[in-house]
Structure formats: structure tokens, C-alpha cells
């Protein structure tokens, strides 16, 4: 781009006269993009104020956010080491991840009484009723426990702080501890999902994967009444903390909602589309009426149908099916009738000319032309409904959506949420690929 070509005045005038539309453009052509961009920016600024974006973000619980996010891929053990009668007694909540009396490698009793809790490497807490020794980065800080408070020694690093009567210790990802005069509350974090396969009640708990596989294939029967494989499957599905059976059945409900809803919508929209198509039913009022029925069904939100039928039938897949059915009968009917109106009339004429009855004329004159389009559209809707059935479920129709919502409301089950999200992503990808493959077989590679 070193030299700019120059033109003389005559050539310039000639170009101006020949291509006026290039050189004299209207205001909108010149500035339209800039004006609309400015409008959009002003609108966004208005919404920024309207939705109180800054106060909302400032007031957000950002310290909790990192905990919630870590909960997706890791788990916390939360024992309380209580000081009772000069002894240290570990206490677990009902959600504890260890069975009674388990040997926990990172929390061992000390020879002289008390417990030592390891936070990875040399970092650890030595808990005795009178004193808690914090070992951090190779140094040791003794915390004296008096009758009403825990006292942090002077010169402690920033990872420890005195908060009123209690002392907080932060070990980073590994966890934290809250030392009070009556107890030490420990949060110890580990990567992965705790007890994903077997809960603490199961005889398989705490065994490694090869060990479980060995037991299932050729081990002594743990339960004399049945084989180890069926016991393992039963224990897995009825895992109390992960509820695999429940989650899988809820996922199945969501899939059934999408499948049955779309299928029924297809079956009903198919004949109705013939009524709505102008070139097939030769009555304008009937066409018009049918199309308005489609518009009406389509325009009432899926949410409204879902809530309405949840009120009538109670939560579960039936309201979901009904919601998808009603919305998509309208949407599919519209698409189908448009496809029918675009169909070629010559084939119908041909069939008609040999004296076929009206139904046969449609069967052999129209259906072969439009069937691939119909099926491909229904597959599209099926695919997209698999996704929307999750949301419909959350509104009250049941299925995995409701389960997700319940798990999120507790604010403690983010690992379960992550598990369900993974399942949903997996199912959506599988369905996308199945429906893509079916579609490309039906109407060739051209479709995306």
C-alpha cells in the first residue's frame, strides 16, 4: 500500500457522474450503523442503571462464590473436634463422609491424647484440650485455649487471624480451621467427589476400584443372599448421598417429556397442517381459522402451559408433556403447512387424473415430497425440546430440572449439580448427534 493511484479531474467527474449511488449516499446509509450503535449503547447504559448492576455486584457474596465453585469439583470433610472433659472428641454431622470409627488417614489420634489433623505436606494442627499447635510452612504457632477463648500468639502470619474469641486458620485449597474455646471446627477439602460410588453404609465403601471389580467377579459373597455384582449395583443406585437411581429416573422423565411431547405434537400437527394449507384445503375461512389456532397455541408460552398443567395434574412428566405438546403443535403446524404450501402441485394432479380418492391423492401426491422436511423439522424440535424440558421441569413439571433446582437451593450440593449438568450435557450431545445423523440421512448432507 505504498503508492496511492492518482486520477485527473476529468476522470474524477466521469466517475462521479457514472456511479452517483456510490458517492452520494443517503444519511442512513452513511451513518445508519453509527446511529444504531449509539442507540444500543445508550439503551445498555439505561439498563445498566435500571437493573442496578453495580450495587448488585458490590453486594454479591463473592467469598461464598469461590466456595460454591470449588464444591463443583471437590468435597469438604467437616468434623468438629469437641473438647469434652479434658479429651478431644471428633463429631461428624449427618452428612459426614466417613462411617463410625473409620481410620481417617489425615486425622489421627496422637499418642498423648488429642488429634493431629494434616493439611498436606508438613502443615498440620495438633489439637489437645489445652493447646492447639498450628504447623504452617515449617514453623509452629501455639494457640492457647482458655476457658472462654482461643488466643493467637503474637507474630502470626496473615493466614491466621484472631476473630473475637476464636482463631481462624487458612490453609488455602486444603481447608481451614476455626479454633474456639469449646471446639475446633475443621474444613478439609479434597479433589473429586466423595463417596460417588458407594456410601458409608455399603460393604464396598473405602475399597479401591480394582478391589471392587475383583469382588464382583470372583469374591466371597458379602451378602449370602445374592451375588456381589447385584449387591454392588444396588448399593451404587441407592447411594444415600448421591441418589443415583433418583437422578437417573428424573433424567429419564425429562427425556420422556421431550420425546412424547414432540411425538404427539407431530402426530396431531400432521393432519391439521393439511387443513391449514391453502393449496390442499380449498376454503379460505378454514385455512385462516386453522392458522390462527396454530398461532394461538404457539404464542401461549410453554411456561404458561407447564404451570397450568402442573396445577391440574401435579408435578411430574405429564405437565411437561402437555406443555411441549401444546406449544409445538402450534409451531410444527405452522412449519408443516408452510412446507405443504411450497409443495409441487404437479404430482397431486397426476395422481388425481387417474381417479384416486382425495386421501390417496395426498398420500401419493404430497406426502412423499414433504415427509423428509416434516421428519427433519420434528427432529429439530425434539433436539431443542430435550434442552427446554430441563427448564420446564424446574418450573414445576418435575424431571431433572426440579431436582437441579432443589439441589441448588440447599447451597451445599454443588457437586451433585455438577454431576447432573454433566449428565445433561452428555445426553444433549448424544441426542444432537443422533438427530443430526438421522437428518443428514433423510435430506442429504446439505442440512447443517
Amino acid at each position, binding site marked *: 500500500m505504498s503508492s496511492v493511484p492518482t486520477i485527473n479531474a476529468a476522470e474524477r467527474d466521469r466517475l462521479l457522474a457514472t456511479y452517483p449511488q456510490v458517492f452520494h449516499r443517503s444519511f442512513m446509509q452513511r451513518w445508519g450503523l453509527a446511529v444504531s450503535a449509539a442507540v444500543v449503547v445508550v439503551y445498555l447504559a439505561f439498563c445498566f442503571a435500571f437493573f442496578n448492576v453495580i450495587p448488585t455486584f458490590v453486594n454479591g457474596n463473592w467469598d461464598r462464590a469461590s466456595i460454591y465453585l470449588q464444591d463443583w469439583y471437590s468435597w469438604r470433610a467437616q468434623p468438629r473436634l469437641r473438647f469434652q472433659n479434658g479429651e478431644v472428641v471428633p463429631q461428624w454431622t449427618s452428612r459426614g463422609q466417613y462411617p463410625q470409627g473409620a481410620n481417617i488417614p489425615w486425622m489421627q489420634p496422637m499418642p498423648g491424647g488429642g488429634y493431629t489433623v494434616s493439611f498436606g505436606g508438613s502443615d498440620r494442627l495438633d489439637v489437645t484440650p489445652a493447646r492447639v499447635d498450628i504447623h504452617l510452612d515449617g514453623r509452629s504457632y501455639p494457640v492457647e485455649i482458655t476457658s472462654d477463648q482461643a488466643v493467637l500468639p503474637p507474630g502470626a502470619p496473615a493466614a491466621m487471624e484472631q476473630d473475637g474469641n476464636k482463631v481462624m486458620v487458612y490453609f488455602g485449597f486444603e481447608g481451614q480451621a476455626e479454633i474456639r474455646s469449646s471446639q475446633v471446627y475443621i474444613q478439609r477439602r479434597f479433589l473429586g467427589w466423595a463417596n460417588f460410588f458407594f456410601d458409608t453404609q455399603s460393604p464396598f465403601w473405602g475399597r479401591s476400584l480394582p478391589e471392587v471389580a475383583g469382588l464382583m467377579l470372583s469374591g466371597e459373597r458379602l451378602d449370602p443372599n445374592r451375588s456381589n455384582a447385584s449387591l454392588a449395583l444396588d448399593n451404587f443406585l441407592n447411594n444415600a448421598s448421591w441418589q443415583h437411581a433418583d437422578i437417573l429416573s428424573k433424567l429419564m422423565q425429562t427425556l420422556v417429556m421431550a420425546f412424547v411431547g414432540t411425538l404427539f405434537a407431530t402426530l396431531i400437527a400432521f393432519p391439521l397442517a393439511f387443513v391449514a394449507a391453502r393449496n390442499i384445503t380449498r376454503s379460505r375461512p378454514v385455512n385462516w381459522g386453522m392458522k390462527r389456532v396454530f398461532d394461538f397455541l404457539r404464542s401461549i408460552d410453554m411456561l404458561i402451559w407447564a404451570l397450568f398443567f402442573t396445577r391440574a395434574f401435579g408435578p411430574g412428566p405429564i405437565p411437561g408433556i402437555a406443555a411441549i405438546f401444546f406449544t409445538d403443535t402450534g409451531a410444527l403446524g405452522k412449519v408443516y403447512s408452510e412446507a405443504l404450501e411450497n409443495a409441487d402441485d404437479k404430482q397431486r394432479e397426476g395422481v388425481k387424473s387417474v381417479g384416486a380418492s382425495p386421501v390417496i391423492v395426498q398420500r401419493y401426491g404430497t406426502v412423499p415430497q414433504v415427509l423428509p422436511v416434516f421428519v427433519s423439522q420434528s427432529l429439530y424440535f425434539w433436539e431443542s425440546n430435550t434442552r427446554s424440558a430441563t427448564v420446564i421441569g424446574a418450573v414445576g413439571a418435575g424431571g431433572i430440572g426440579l431436582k437441579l433446582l432443589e439441589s441448588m437451593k440447599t447451597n451445599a450440593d454443588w457437586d451433585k449439580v455438577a454431576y447432573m449438568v454433566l449428565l445433561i*450435557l452428555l445426553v444433549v450431545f448424544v441426542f444432537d448427534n443422533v438427530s443430526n445423523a438421522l437428518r443428514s440421512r433423510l435430506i442429504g448432507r446439505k442440512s447443517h
Partner: protein
Amino acid sequence: MAHVAGADHPSGLTGSSRTILDHYQSQVRTRRIYTLVSIAVFLIVLGASLDFANSANSGKFFERLPYLFDFMKSFVPDSPLEIFRAMFDLPSPYADGSIKYDYTSDRIWITDSFYIPNFFYQLAITINIAIVSTILGASGAFVLCFFAASNLVGSRAVRWFVRRIMEIMRAFPEIVIAGLLAAILSIGPISAIIAVWIHTVGALGKLFFEVVENADMKPDEGLRAAGASWVERVRFAILPQVLPNFVSYTLLRTEINVRASTIIGAVGGGGIGEVFSLSIGRDHAAKTYAIIILLLITVICVDQFSAWLRRRLIGHQSFEFGRGAA
């Protein structure tokens, strides 16, 4: 295959014609068997699904069906005018102190004497959620789509990466994003905006890059010959071709997002969806019908407006296929 030489054939054909007819008929038979088998499998799957759905539902279909009509009968407002009063926050003659007939206390006062009816205000929130998330989502998709198009980016790794990001954004359940943000930012429209926004980036990004891949590459070649940089080529060769389709898809997405933000609202994002799920759950017939009518009008208006604008932009062209990526 089923042809038996010399057998008397009812069609009266002979020789090779008979062979052809026999082959044709055997093919038709095979096809019919396949069709029947697949219909049978289909019906079995459907029956099993229906049975499963019915047993999983808390109310059974046939037991509850009579009550559906009872519910509808009891769900009639006291007078048709009640719907109108609920819509515009006018005092009700049936007022008995319960919130069912309390329409006036929800008024949103702008000045001392001028108020916006609550449902209109909530509707405005929902529509604004939809528009903001569509604008932000379309911008995100616009930036990403060029990196996913095989005719603009040579590196397979970049394309693969960008496309997978879009897929995950598209398939990630919106309610999870909304729920997580609601736990952090407290319940409100912002979590709904971000949830819908992320989904929109994925859905529009896919449609956008397919448009870019179908663009005519001749202008690009011309610019490349003149020594234009990558950005200049995208700006002057690709963008003018694809912009009308981009705008059209974005408008279509706005329609979808109005519905999506209503639903997310019902889950806890604020707006008309939340109000609606409360009023139907409490059996407030008049309020519920008022919201249904408002939503119906809104959806029809948005659909018509965007259809009109799209037709002006790119002529009559069915974009219903785009719904698949929704």
C-alpha cells in the same frame, strides 16, 4: 429371489418382465416388513414412555382428568372486568383484604400522581432482560463466529476450540447458571440476563459461523490480492455479505429470548414469570388471566415486529430452521 421359473403368473407377463415385477414386489414386501417392525418398536417405546410418565407423575392422568375441568371451573374470575382491573391495578369491588383482590398496592409510582401497573412494570423487566441478553449475546457470538469458520481460520485447533466452547455454552442448562448466580448475587434480573446471555452466545454463534462459511469468497480473494490484512478482509469482504443474516438471526433470537427470560423469571429471575408462577400457584384467577393476556399480546407483537423487520432485511425466507439451535 422369490422367482420360480415356469410358474403361472397372474399378471400375464412373461420372461424378463415377470422377473422385474417379482423383484419389485419382493422389495416392496421387504420394505413393508421394515416399516411394520419400526412402527411396532416405536409403539412399544411410546407405550413404555407413557406408562413411565404416568407412574412417575404425582397425579395419575386418568384419575386427575375429571379434576382438570373442576380446576378450570373454579379458575374463573368473578367478573370479566376483574381481569381488566388486575391488569391496570384498579381497585376491585370484591376486595376483602386478601391479596387475591388486592390490585392497588402493587402500583409502581413514578410521580406522586402517576403510576405504572405492576404487571406492565414486570413485563418491561422481562422484555429488557431479553433485549439486553440478546444484544450482549449477539456481540459475543459476532466476535467468536469468525474464529469458528473454516474459510477464515486455517488452524484446526482454534476452530475446534471455539466450536466446543459454543457447544458447551449452548447446552449448559440455563437454570444452573441462573441458580448459581442467584446464590452469589441474590435473586434478581442480573442472574437471568447472564444465563440467557451465555446461552445466546452459543446458539447464535453456531448459526453465525454457518452463515460465514457459506459466504462468497471472491471479494475476500480480491482484498487479499490487494494486500489487505485479516481484519480488513473480514470487515470489507465478509461482513457486508453476512450482516443481513446476522441481524435476522438476532431478531429471531430476540423472540426466543423473550420466552426464555419469562421462564427463567419463574425459576427466580424476577419479572413477569415470577409474578405469574406466584399468582397461578395461589389460585388468583383474575391476576393469572391478566398476565396470560399480557404475555400473549407481547409474544404476538414481538413475533410480528421481528418477522416484519426480517422480511424487510432479507426478503421472504423461512428461518424456522434456526429454531433447531434454540
